[in-house]
């Protein structure tokens, strides 16, 4: 057990599963000698060679489509998409093909494929290196969508994903790669990929969130709880498709006040679905309107620092939202 960063935990998860299962290989842009633009595959090419850590041509549909084919033949590919922003050329392969393979073949075929991609902003990545596209995949039956909020979950959920018989989108917050740190066992282990995690129990208010926002909400909640007597529960959704409906409903019923926090813009998003689930199942338990906090309805996060800061969900915005809800 040692303290590791998010990107180290992900790398360790890949390395151990590649040692454990020779069907696992990686295909993506710059994953070889360079070790990926964020270093997620650093050292893996040296250890496993050209056949298992393959630099792909610059073509995302190709990366995913080829991985689907290899998975159909029995391998366990990891497709790395350099930035989640560049997953769009692969959307047809993901939604038309990977997501529907088992269903359309009536269980004759399956696609055990993990697609990893860094997402999110706050790193001066501008319009095309900061986006959060998870919502569009969370409406798609046949896909699983996972966003780890800490290194422990990241390693364990990645190994689970690699053993899953169906396609899993594994989205990693790029700002968290080095800023998120935590204890990670040295040996291989799994964390289930379809459950939410109550990271902090509370009585008065639940925050549902995921990814890098989890630790940010924890910090703000700790500060607020220091100042005033309010007990805040925080639920790390962590699996965005399927959502863990039971945990969501139980927590909302318990506290009666709900704040949903995400970095992405709100319209037709995870926050919409969590709110709708709560509406359906917690009507008689709610003490306040379900509140949502996320990015503004603009196409993406701009480059210039004042604009980027304007976009972000900051601790101040989270605090204000909590206080409004408490006061309701």
């Amino acid at each position, binding site marked *: 057990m040692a303290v590791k960063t998010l990107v180290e935990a992900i790398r360790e998860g890949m390395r151990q599963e590649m040692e454990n299962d020779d069907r696992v290989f990686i295909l993506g842009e710059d994953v070889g000698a360079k070790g990926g633009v964020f270093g997620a595959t650093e050292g893996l090419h040296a250890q496993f060679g050209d056949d298992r850590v393959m630099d792909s041509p610059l073509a995302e549909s190709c990366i995913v489509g080829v991985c689907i084919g290899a*998975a159909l033949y029995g391998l366990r590919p990891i497709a790395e998409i350099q930035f989640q922003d560049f997953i769009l050329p692969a959307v047809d392969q993901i939604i038309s093909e990977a997501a529907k393979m088992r269903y359309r073949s*009536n269980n004759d075929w399956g696609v055990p494929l993990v697609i990893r991609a860094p997402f999110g902003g706050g790193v001066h990545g501008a319009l095309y290196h900061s986006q959060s596209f998870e919502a569009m995949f969370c409406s798609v039956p046949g896909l699983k969508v996972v966003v780890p909020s800490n290194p422990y979950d990241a390693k364990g959920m990645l190994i689970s994903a690699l053993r899953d018989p169906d396609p899993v989108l594994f989205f990693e917050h790029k700002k968290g790669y080095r800023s998120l740190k935590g204890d990670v066992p040295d040996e291989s282990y799994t964390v289930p990929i379809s459950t939410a995690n109550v990271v902090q129990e509370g009585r008065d208010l639940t925050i549902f969130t995921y990814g890098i926002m989890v630790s940010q909400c924890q910090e703000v909640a700790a500060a607020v709880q220091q100042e005033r007597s309010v007990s805040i529960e925080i639920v790390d959704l962590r699996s965005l498709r399927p959502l863990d409906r039971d945990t969501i409903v139980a927590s909302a019923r318990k506290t009666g006040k709900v704040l949903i926090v995400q970095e992405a813009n709100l319209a037709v998003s995870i926050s919409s679905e969590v709110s709708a689930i709560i509406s359906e199942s917690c009507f008689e338990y709610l003490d306040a309107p379900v509140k949502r906090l996320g990015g503004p309805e603009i196409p993406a996060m701009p480059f210039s620092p004042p604009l980027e800061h304007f976009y972000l969900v900051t601790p101040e915005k989270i605090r204000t939202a909590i206080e409004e809800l408490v006061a309701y």
Partner: protein
Amino acid sequence: MSDTKTEAHRKGVQGTVAPEVLRQIYVTAVRSRVLDERIWVLNRQGRAPFWISGMGHEVFQSAVGAAVDPSRDWVVPYYRDLAMTLAFGMSPKDHFLSALAKADDPNSGGRQMPAHFGSHAHNIVSTGSPVATQMLHATGVALAMKLRHTDALSVTSLGEGSTSGGDFHEALNFAATHKLPVLFLVENNGYAISVPLDKQMPTSHVSDRALAYGIPGVSVDGGDAVACYEAARTAVERARKGEGPTLIEGMVARLTSHSSDDDERRYRPADEIETVHQSDCLVRLERYLLLQGVLTEDDLKSIRDAAVKEIDVDMEAAEQAPLPEPETALRYVYAEEA
């Protein structure tokens, strides 16, 4: 541009093909034709809501099918590959079950439209409707075959119209870069639904594109079984030796409207609709087999009779089979626990 070069590519390759292979090609093509015609009848009777036909493409598919080894090779077909699926071991019954949307349809359990093929047992990868995506799946299958050190290969096919999509290019580029064992088949029938070749692409042969990827590209007359078979054999040998992919374009004819939902008279010249049947690949193959003395008139008749009989029996069986239960629609979104 490189006219001489591509002309050379286009020429049907000459060679001698063993009589039993030619017979096999013919049997597959006839079974496909009889089956295809029968499903059209079901469609016109209102019993099969949709059909999309392989008529006119059968000889090309049957010849390629005879050149590969369905026991180890894989195919990722497209919707006109009825004959190819028969070459890989599917039965007419399988296709009737699908046309009638029955629960036991091995392609999809009645979930997909007919002619959306797939059977793990027969090394036929499940295919959907979006065109050209399968190019990349076949490439990935071939990559896996190479990484696992097999000597197997994958075959995949699409229409000439579908080569305009990005996945066609991405697949050829990847397969050629990694010298993967794939046969890329283009079944060029001159139309993508109503869109004729000259609005689809700037040259008249998709095989010209092989030059872009430094791989062999040949165009063969889809009514010339020998040329089709020889081109496929050459490509198979190349693939098994680890020398990489080949692009084979079969110049074929679409003998029907695009599908049972289409009426080609809206856009296809009447005289062309008329004349296209005069070069029916199956008729040409029969003429060739007789001329070469490979088969007699009696042989042809008994092969066709056997096909009709098989298809009668299979249709009957498929008609008896049950439709799926409604709630089964919820199954197999994800793998189910054992």
